[in-house]
């Protein structure tokens, strides 16, 4: 096998995450699927970093992790405030921005 196999694995993981976003209804599980897609992208960056022989891919993966952490904090806070208003964490229930 060659390091390209990691790219195929990352593509598989990304696809599973994307299908999960389309299929699931719970907002928190949707968020986990987005995290999975970000992780798959990180694996791609790390594998490319090894293929090209430079460390720039690893730096990009590091920044992706930082942005993912900030995104999770804000996203979970939004989910909690929606839950407080609607008593529900399902994305189908929040079809109105007001009330």
């Amino acid at each position, binding site marked *: 096998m060659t390091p390209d196999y990691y*790219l195929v694995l990352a593509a598989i993981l990304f*696809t599973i995450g994307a299908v999960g976003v389309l299929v699931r209804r719970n907002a928190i599980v949707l968020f986990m699927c987005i995290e*999975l897609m970000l992780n798959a992208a*990180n694996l791609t960056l790390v594998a490319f970093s090894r293929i090209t022989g430079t*460390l720039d891919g690893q730096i990009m993966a590091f920044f992706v992790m930082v942005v993912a952490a900030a995104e999770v904090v*804000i996203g979970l806070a939004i989910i909690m405030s929606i839950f407080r208003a609607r008593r529900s964490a399902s994305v189908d229930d929040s079809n109105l921005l007001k009330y």
Partner: protein
Amino acid sequence: MTATVLAAEAAGRVSAGEAWAFWILGALAVVGALGMVLARNAVHSALWLVVTMLCLGFFYVINAAPFLGAVQIIVYTGAIMMLFLFVLMLVGRDASDSLIETLRGQRVVAVLLGLGFAGLVATGLGRALDGTTAVGLTEANAPGNVQAIAGLLFSRYVLAFEITSALLITAAVGAMVLAHVERGKEDRSDQVERMRQRFAPGSYPAPKAGPGVYANTMSVAVPARLPDGSQSERSISKILPQRELTAPEAAPKGTEK
């Protein structure tokens, strides 16, 4: 040993040990991802995702990125997943997914779309990367992985690094603003008011009866017996699943008089 690894690196191929690790951990990662999507319970989804993230952390270490591997395990499985579990316990503990499809046939179309996407990406990658050789990171990692990353981070990427700190501060302030609940002075009740409410007609001033612990059962799912012999439904937690006793469980244990 090192010579063979270097030779394999130079040929763009990986060692047999790495191939073994790839097939085992890769299968585990895919199983974890599938389990996350397929698990009905959101807490189970989170635990499956932890499996996938741990596998990816090992992959980073294998791919000559030990710093990212450590960050993956500390930040993702340590901090972010714990945050997910906290919010799950606050919000979505019993929020299992509804099985009603709002758009008819959406799930089938989503899976077909995913298969098509995976096919496109995989064939594209296969054709684009056929015949390329991996350079390997032995040269770039020569001063040590952390030192090399720090050298890049604080020279070429220093502006992005500074902007990252602004992003993190914004995120922290945003989370505080979103999670904070403003309570007016008129909403606060003093002790006298709370006491009045407690002894008002219709409320129950005494502590709730605990769930039953009898000679023939120790289950917290068994309701407490009130003085008049009736069962107190409010003594059992609503989270506990209601279930019927099976015949051997309901049969006399030989301990009754």
